[in-house]
């Protein structure tokens, strides 16, 4: 008995030591792979165009904020951010408002066609935006909403409402049904119960759903570009148009890119434990 433990323990120790190192090495390499492209974007955003096209350097020689100044003072640039944020916020509020009661219904009750409906919602989350680009363009042109924030916000509900319903349902199923029943016995009406008791219980779920609605609307380009021309043009679309122009200012383009990363980077810490759950539609 003693002999086996003696031989076993040191063997485990010699095995464990290099393994820990290997894991750290792999992890470090992977994080470097992720961060170097982002570093390059930030580095170029701090350089003038002449410096970028001149001698090749690994870090900015004379860091300058001139590119950011261009974006923050030129309306044709900064209005892109205003437009993007406007339709993203409208979309997030709208998606959550309709998804909350629906997710409650799916998590608590069975009703005629519930499974079909749930599946149909999923297909919309999975639908390729390319299929919808042309009909959306015609639909919103026909009703006079083309080039408005509402049009993009409504178009993005195509994938954000199903996403919000699925994520919220995933969180709601974790709340025991006894709480609902107790509240009804105590004489709470449904709306009162829902807003006062239920919503605080799934506050983190609502936060995660809001974050993902915001994110997916923020990163989308195809629909927002198709549905806007001038007045509601999102920053993403302004950036692609700049790319296709000839006399291209790399520094400003990179600065614009860095600014689009900021909203995600600001809140990422708070949702770090839910990222997998959010991407997997509330499952996992």
């Amino acid at each position, binding site marked *: 008995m003693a002999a086996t433990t003696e031989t076993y323990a040191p063997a485990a120790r010699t095995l464990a030591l290099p393994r820990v190192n290997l894991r750290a090495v*792999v992890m470090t390499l992977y994080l470097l792979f992720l961060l170097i492209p982002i570093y390059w974007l930030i580095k170029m955003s701090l350089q003038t165009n002449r410096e970028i096209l001149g001698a090749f350097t690994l870090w900015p020689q004379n860091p300058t904020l001139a590119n950011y100044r261009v974006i923050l003072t030129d309306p044709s640039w900064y209005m892109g951010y205003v437009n993007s944020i406007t339709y993203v916020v409208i979309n997030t509020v709208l998606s959550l408002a309709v998804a909350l009661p629906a997710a*409650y219904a799916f998590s608590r009750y069975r009703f005629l066609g519930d499974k079909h409906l*749930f599946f149909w919602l999923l297909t919309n989350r999975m639908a*390729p935006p390319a299929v919808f680009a042309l009909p959306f363009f015609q639909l919103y042109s026909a009703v006079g909403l083309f080039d408005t924030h509402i049009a993009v916000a409504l178009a993005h509900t195509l994938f954000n*409402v199903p996403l919000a319903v699925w994520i919220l349902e995933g969180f709601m199923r974790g709340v025991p049904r006894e709480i609902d029943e107790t509240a009804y016995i105590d004489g709470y009406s449904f709306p009162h119960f829902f807003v006062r008791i239920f919503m605080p219980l799934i506050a983190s779920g609502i936060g995660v759903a809001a974050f993902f609605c915001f994110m997916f609307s923020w990163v989308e380009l195809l629909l927002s570009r198709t549905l806007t021309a001038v007045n509601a043009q999102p920053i993403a679309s302004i950036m692609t148009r700049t790319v296709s122009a000839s006399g291209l200012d790399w520094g400003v383009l990179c600065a614009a890119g860095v600014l689009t990363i900021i909203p995600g980077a600001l809140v990422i810490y708070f949702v770090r434990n839910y990222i997998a759950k959010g*991407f997997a539609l509330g*499952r996992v």
Partner: protein
Amino acid sequence: MDKPVNQKAWFLVLPVLVLVAFSAVIPLMTVVNYSVQDTFGNNVFFWHGIGWFQEVLTSPRVHGAFGRQLLFSAIVLAIQIPLGVAIALCMPRRGIWVSVCLVLMALPLLIPWNVVGTIWQILGRSDIGLLGRALDAMGISFNYARNPLHAWIIVVVMDVWHWTSLVALLAYAGLRSIPQAYYQAAEIDQASRWKVFRYIELPKMRGVLLIAVLLRFMDSFMIYTEPFVVTGGGPGSATSFLSIDLVKMALGQFDLGPAAAFSLLYFLVILLVSWVFYTVMTTIDRAEG
């Protein structure tokens, strides 16, 4: 886990139904409409039957796009799934490094897709980009705008950069749900690291890995923005995947009939995969609940 039957729950679902019907069903009906009609312009349409479907199904252009799409999805899955699992196994389990890793890994997932394209477009250029410059220094003249193989490499590497973290995060979530007792039991049995992975970790991760595979398949199957920004589908049509080709057809050339038929067939594939996804999800739910 028996839910009571309550038909009034329909009223709670109604707003979603109306909204999604407006943004999904009406546009889809327009597509169906176009797919069976032809026009000589002036908004005069006439019945064309299944002509467009036949044309799309036999068109070499669509076949090419579909083939490239399948190849792309296959390559991307073959790299991202094993790599993602490996990364998840290498992640720290506790301490402040967990948060650091989670935040840094999630960063690429939250970058707008066109910026992802821009980042790699710049990185791969041999005059101003780090990657292009490094390859140049090694004696490889890297030019993704001219060389189809280089275009493919940069698009695949970009997708690996963009989405591997998703697989890793899902796999990590699966790993964390394994009770410590399993590892202790394995240690008592003196199971090798490989055996622990093969007989404990892999079976426990099966559910999340299925989700990861399906999500990555769906999203890579409808990829548009990133390759559009980097290569614009070129050189020639070397990297025009299904969505890029469809948008070219529908909004570029305004070939409504073929584009609509193409859309419907595309949507059918998506529907099929969605159904698999749904079945997997509900099976997992039942296993857990």
